[in-house]
């Protein structure tokens, strides 16, 4: 049997790269939640993250769109990586005899499902339903200053309609007016998809533990860490609550003069 020579530097680099990528997936959406998309992203993602990445993004002065986007993605990635490192800290706490880098890598790779869900919900639900085509619409005057969503169940979150985000919200309403039943199906589908994804998350994490020779005695504790982080993330404002869904789908078309 042959024995391959190990390349220490490269192997260690790989560990950190695999730690970086889930963090990037997780944070990039918050980073790209600029003025154009923020109104919609706030329905799905924790506002704290969006504000945090916005703060970092706006630190260096910039005017150009691509510069802004690049800085946004990088600041989002930084926030995501911090989250992954925090998760790794708890993994290390559970697996005391493991090196931090190895424990954090497993935690981050397991978390990649949630990170991906976060990263691509914006792509699918904001852009692909035709948002960007309606960006140029002028907001209706009566919309300025009104509050669209004030109270929606357990999650305290709301979007005050301002001059800045009104075009986006008006466009959102227009889209829903075009096809309310389709929009309703879309959102129901998204919720079902999201919770199915959570189930897959725990299954995949379990397979990852088996594959990386994590001792059996840690499996349950690590899944509990995953579960806790997921709960925290949901409590911070990830996803869309049923009340929120109900409000948006049913009222928004009428609000904007639709059928």
């Amino acid at each position, binding site marked *: 049997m*042959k024995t*391959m020579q190990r*390349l220490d530097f490269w192997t260690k680099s790989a560990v950190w790269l695999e730690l970086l990528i889930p963090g990037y997936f997780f944070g990039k959406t918050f980073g790209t939640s600029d003025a154009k998309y923020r109104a919609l992203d706030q329905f799905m993602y924790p506002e704290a993250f969006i504000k945090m990445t916005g703060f970092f993004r706006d630190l260096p002065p910039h005017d150009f769109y691509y510069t802004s986007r690049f800085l946004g993605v990088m600041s989002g990635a930084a926030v995501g990586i911090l989250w992954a490192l925090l998760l790794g800290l708890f993994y290390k706490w559970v697996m005391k005899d493991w090196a931090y880098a190895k424990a954090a890598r497993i935690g981050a790779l397991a978390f990649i499902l949630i990170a991906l869900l976060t990263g691509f919900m914006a792509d699918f639900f904001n*852009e692909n339903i035709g948002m960007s085509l309606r960006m140029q619409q002028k907001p209706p005057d009566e919309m300025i200053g009104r509050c669209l969503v004030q109270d929606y169940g357990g999650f305290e979150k709301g979007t005050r309609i301002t001059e800045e985000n009104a075009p986006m919200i008006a466009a959102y309403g227009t889209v829903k007016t075009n096809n309310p039943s389709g929009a309703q199906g879309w959102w129901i589908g998204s919720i079902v998809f999201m919770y199915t994804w959570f189930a897959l998350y725990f299954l995949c994490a379990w397979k990852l533990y088996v594959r990386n*020779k994590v001792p059996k005695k840690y499996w349950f504790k690590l899944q509990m860490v995953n579960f806790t982080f997921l709960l925290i993330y949901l409590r911070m404002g990830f996803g869309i609550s049923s009340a929120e869904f109900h409000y948006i789908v049913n009222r928004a078309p009428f609000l904007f003069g639709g059928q």
Partner: protein
Amino acid sequence: MKLAIGAFTTKDDFTRHVRNMAGLGLSLYVWGILTGYVTNWVCVMIALGGMTLQFSDFSWGRTKGAGYFWIYLAVQGFSNFMPFQFPLDAEAWKIMANKSIAWEFGGQGMPLFRGAGLLMSLPVVLYTLYIALRLVKTPPDATARARRTVTSKKWRIFFQSTMFGWYLVLFASGMTSRPVSNPELFFWFLAMLLGSLVMPFFIGRWFCGWMCPVGVFQDSIWRFYNFKGLIKISDKFKFQINRVYVPATMVLFIIVIYSFERVFQLASSAEMLRSPDWTSLWKPMVWTKVLTNGMFIGSMLFAYRIYCRYFCWYIGYRVTLGQPSLYRVPFMTERCRICPECKPEKSCVMGFEFQSVPEGEAELSIRSIGEVPANCNLCYECRDLCPHGVFKKKIERINVIPERCIGCRLCELACSGGRLGVFDPSRSNIQIEMEGTPELPAPKILGTCDGCNGDPKCIKVCPARVIIWDKDEVRKGLEPKRPGPVLQLVTRLNPFRKTPPPCPTPCAAYPAGCPACEINTARQAAQVKGDAA
């Protein structure tokens, strides 16, 4: 030259014809794209010929290259002459209706005279029929037939052919439609959504091995010509493939691209070829595309699938996301005999070294984990080639019917003699032990038995037919075929049945059980009658 129309006698004979067809297919393809004049039914014939060649792979070696040429040719003909395009907008439909089809020249095709396409196509259609006829006459290769693992390859080729054909239709349609509604982009959207974002969590890089058109292109051409590459890949690269280069690809390409543009602003190759916008070359998506295409061409110098190993920017998603995948190709370490010429290792397009253990990381090697890494594209070549069934969870081993054993111990001698060259029953993979009272011989097969690469000696010498191997076609022919559960139920429920239900014992030798068997129905009935009397 004498035209033989009998069966192919050698593989080389067949391969020679296939290469001729590839050359003719290429010439017809050039003719077709220059003139846009290939009739529709010829396209159908060509597609059938291509598919025939695809599936002849099972008996006569690698023919996929020629097959794909033909399919490509047929698709080209379809896209030029039929309104077989993706009707996404009125403008594209209008173009189709106006028969602005020969995209190379931006207008109508240039038929030389009526029937020119048919005349041009006739020799190759006849050639296809000729080879197909000879293939029909050729009996399948017995050894290839005996290997049941070929089933996975059959499905792979079917998927690859279908997806490749579909992609080419979309690609060709994209050449004639407007930029807003580009069908090729639709394909890559699906590839992104399903192949890169959802499927990796279930089956890793299955998309790369079974559906990706870029991979199919490389497989078909490079495997057909057995091209090994001009530049050898070092062991360092091979070892680090899964740990460094793939995440690095991810960081370099996807993160940089996304930093500037949304993923769904992709520009398709067809669109860029049709109307290249030189003013937008500075855009990250455009130069990334140019870079990746350049790397694809450059990677051809090494070997096929090198692009898929290191450079394709989709693999960043598929491999990283596939780390926690639910399924991977298993590696049953206890069955691996560390053969000096490991066929799976030689044929692996991803360059895995199944026999190597990285220093300091033995606990995470393939041999230790019992699975191949996430970078595997699940082509199952290894599964087909390994004679010891290392890449299969369950293998069909030889089995025994202990009741038939007469204790002659010939199997022990045959096993040790056939494998090791010495008659040493203690080193045999089958051991006869005496059990029970009175002592009866009970053959036991050890876990180290690998079926002698498909040619077990013990089966040949056993006089009492104790040892059974399901792959043995002769034995299958001798034994009656056991009906499946549905047929058994139907037989049982049928009030008009004339034959008794099959015996539930494993041997299934007689429909109602052996005369000496305890559960023989006739014997049971006679016993009941006797007891009653």
